[in-house]
């Protein structure tokens, strides 16, 4: 069949094709080189410290910590479907000395460059350890030291073995030591020298080895992070050219900024705005997070919580699903200190269900009822980081416990004041003297020390630690000693599970819910993977 139309010969239409093709090609070229930008409304009042160790808690590490810098041992924070694990960072491997379990050898990665072009080597590790642990060193920075020293308490000494090997000795045998290292970030000694040994100047021109470089910092207003094209880890190259961090501390303002298109994603939208965000087409991302919202009981003589039946009754009297509803779904009912998917959860026999009848029966056995209630005073915060909806949640619990014969009285303070009460331990005058027998404080449970052992080790009673209630169980202490000397992660996990089982079976706290670290995203945002951690990997963000 003869075609109705034949294609004209190329030379005749060439100019026309050019007219079409050139703008098209230019557009493609422009889009290929157009910078992709993600504007992130963060819940903090200011950009966290940019000199190395961020301030403002665990959540700040995702902003100016693991973006600009790397640790020796890192945390897998780009997996949503399971808890992360320790992975190689600037140390490609590490091992403990089989003869002296206090000595750890770290083999450093070759070819990692700081943003200023200098090479990462053993000297940089020693220099950075001095930066936070040796107050006689010229580079010692009190502010960075304050942030990280509590998080790396095991380090006793350190030395360079060769250009790519460093040895760290711990104060005692501590198999959990590697868990401390994702908190310790490596800054560039060369950049610090170049800027006249001035940490304040370094803050605006920082240099680390991380996947992003700091391009612009306007205090309290914005920080621009740009992709580090020369990043050493090719599997973790940034997917967005630029991430703009905008501090918006007020939750409602943050949501309004997202709804009006001023930012592309926000963290922690307020629960009551969730339906509006969803109906407007915004995506809500949540995941189980290492955080628990408990009442930490005093186990000291005279405390109303010394009777295990009362502690169990309190745990059975709470309708956790009701609290999740109060939070508009932004929480997960707690079954213990850690989530049941954690390798440290174990198999506790005491189940945290909602069973008013069983709770009343336990209270009756203990000699109490609604007519003859047990009275207890709990210190709580007005609100603040990690406290979720402190006052409404506490009032909910107050009503729930009243139904089984526990009459709560609250001492409401600001979060900073609550920390003072926490650090001081229950025996301190400011607690025992006021009749306070429980404290409500959101706990980060990201690693075995932070999540579990520090709360039950009798050697961590104030002033040595935050075993607030003064719990003392020689069996648990022995398990903790075993954990510290067991270098096989599976054995470690098993022992931790035993400790956790004991905590739950003894109803050591009133566990209520876990936070889910909610984020709200505009439909433009792709690739945001919310890890089951406070560390989030911003390299996966795509626009």
């Amino acid at each position: 069949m003869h075609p109705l139309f034949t294609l004209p010969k190329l030379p005749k239409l060439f100019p026309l094709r050019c007219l079409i093709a050139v703008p098209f090609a230019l557009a493609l070229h422009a889009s290929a080189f157009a910078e992709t930008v993600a504007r992130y409304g963060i819940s903090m009042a200011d950009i966290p410290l940019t000199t190395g160790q961020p301030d403002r808690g665990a959540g700040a590490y995702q902003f100016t910590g693991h973006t600009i810098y790397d640790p020796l041992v890192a945390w897998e924070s780009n997996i949503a479907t399971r808890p992360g694990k320790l992975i190689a960072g600037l140390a490609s491997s590490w091992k403990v000395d089989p003869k002296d379990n206090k000595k750890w050898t770290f083999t450093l990665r070759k070819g990692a460059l700081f943003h200023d072009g200098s090479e990462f080597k053993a000297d940089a590790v020693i220099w950075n350890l001095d930066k936070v642990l040796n107050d006689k060193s010229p580079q010692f920075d009190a502010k960075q030291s304050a942030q990280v020293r509590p998080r790396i308490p095991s380090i006793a000494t350190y030395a360079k073995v060769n250009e790519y090997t460093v040895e760290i000795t711990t104060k005692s045998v501590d198999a959990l030591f590697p868990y401390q290292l994702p908190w310790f970030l490596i800054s560039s000694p060369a950049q610090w020298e170049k800027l006249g040994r001035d940490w304040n100047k370094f803050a605006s021109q920082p240099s680390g080895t991380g996947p992003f470089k700091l391009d612009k910092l306007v205090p309290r207003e914005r920080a621009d992070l740009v992709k580090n094209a020369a990043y050493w880890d090719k599997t973790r190259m940034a997917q967005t050219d630029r991430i703009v961090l905008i501090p918006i501390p007020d939750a409602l303002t943050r949501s309004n900024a997202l709804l009006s298109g001023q930012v592309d994603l926000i963290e922690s939208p307020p629960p009551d705005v969730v339906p509006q965000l969803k109906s407007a087409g915004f995506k809500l991302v949540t995941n189980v997070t290492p955080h628990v919202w408990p009442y930490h009981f005093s186990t000291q003589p005279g405390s109303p919580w010394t009777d295990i039946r009362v502690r169990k009754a309190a745990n059975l009297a709470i309708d956790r699903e009701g609290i999740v509803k109060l939070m508009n779904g932004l929480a997960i009912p707690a079954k213990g200190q850690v989530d049941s998917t954690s390798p440290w959860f174990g198999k506790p026999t005491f189940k945290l269900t909602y069973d008013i009848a069983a709770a009343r029966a336990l209270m009756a056995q203990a000699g109490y009822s609604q007519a003859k209630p047990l009275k207890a005073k709990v210190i709580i915060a007005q609100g603040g980081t990690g406290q979720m909806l402190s006052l409404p949640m506490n009032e909910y619990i107050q009503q729930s416990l009243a139904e089984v014969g526990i009459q709560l009285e609250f001492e409401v303070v600001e979060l900073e004041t609550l920390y003072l009460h926490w650090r001081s331990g229950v025996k301190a005058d400011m607690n025992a003297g006021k009749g306070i027998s429980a404290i409500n404080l959101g706990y980060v449970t990201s690693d075995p020390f932070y999540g579990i052992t520090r709360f039950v080790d009798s050697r961590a009673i104030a002033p040595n630690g935050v075993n607030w209630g003064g719990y003392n169980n020689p069996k648990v202490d022995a398990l903790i000693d075993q954990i510290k000397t067991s270098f096989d992660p599976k054995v470690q996990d098993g022992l931790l599970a035993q400790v956790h089982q004991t905590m739950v079976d003894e109803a050591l706290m009133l566990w209520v819910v876990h936070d889910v670290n909610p984020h709200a995203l505009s439909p433009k945002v792709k690739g945001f993977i919310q890890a089951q951690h406070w560390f989030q990997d911003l390299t996966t963000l795509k626009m």
Partner: protein
Amino acid sequence: MFSYILKRLLYTLPIALSVTLVSFMLVYLAPGDPLNAIAPADAPAEVITALKAAYGLDQPIPIQYGKWLLRAVQGDLGKSIASGREVVTEVLGAVSNTLLLAGVAGLAGVLAGCLLGALAGYWHGGWIDRIATVLSVIGVSIPHYWLGLVLTIIFSTKLAWFPAMGAGPGGSSEWLWDLEHMRYLVLPALTLSVIPLGIITRTVRALVADMLEQEFVIALRARGLSNRAIFRHVAKNTAPTILAVAGLQLGYLMGGSILVETVFAWPGTGFLLNTAIFQRDIPLLQGTILVLCLFFVALNLLVDILQPLIDPRMGRA
């Protein structure tokens, strides 16, 4: 007149000194620990002790005050504990933003309040008076935090006419007199302007209504003066009081806009104060309170000086 101004200036000195003492001491009366701004909640005792020494917080309060005052008179308000930046730089940046916001809101509120109040006072008891009364009561009593949220929901998230937060694109506070930046000013200024609007309306209404019944106005009318001429006399007699009230309002707006600035994340003194309070950033808190108080004192001084210029009888008194 010169002696009057000199006397006012001399009165200001002890007030300013008291202001420094109050702004220094106030933050020590608040509960909490300033070291929480820099140390994690579970920081061990030795870290806390070292930090106290590093920031001079281990010294007796009178010594801390003396050192702080000595530095403050030289223009050095120290460094922010949380950020390490100079407090003076932080505060002056915020003051300029708040001045802009308070200035626009104050001007709008005062002009609208004077107009509305004058009309209400002139037609005392009429429908315009009733409208003005309702508006002024709303202006004085409405929670500004709530009004800000309502305006944001309507004009930002629903209609997308104005931005919901910040003072410029991308969180920038660098001010430019262009249309894009002006859009950021509209909602916070509108929210804030209802305060002076309500107060000035009530004040002017009462003054004008009262003035129109004064004997000298009746005499002026009897002499056959035009309404315009009478208005000039009334305006001249009411101006000192209006000026004093307006001056106070601008002072209140400078420091009293914490909630409005927080709702709109406007990077001014209110927002800075809010941040400093929550971070227990003592040097920043002291510096901000001091600058705001001194601004208030200076504003009062200015009003005191301007009043006798408008009405010489006050200078003679």
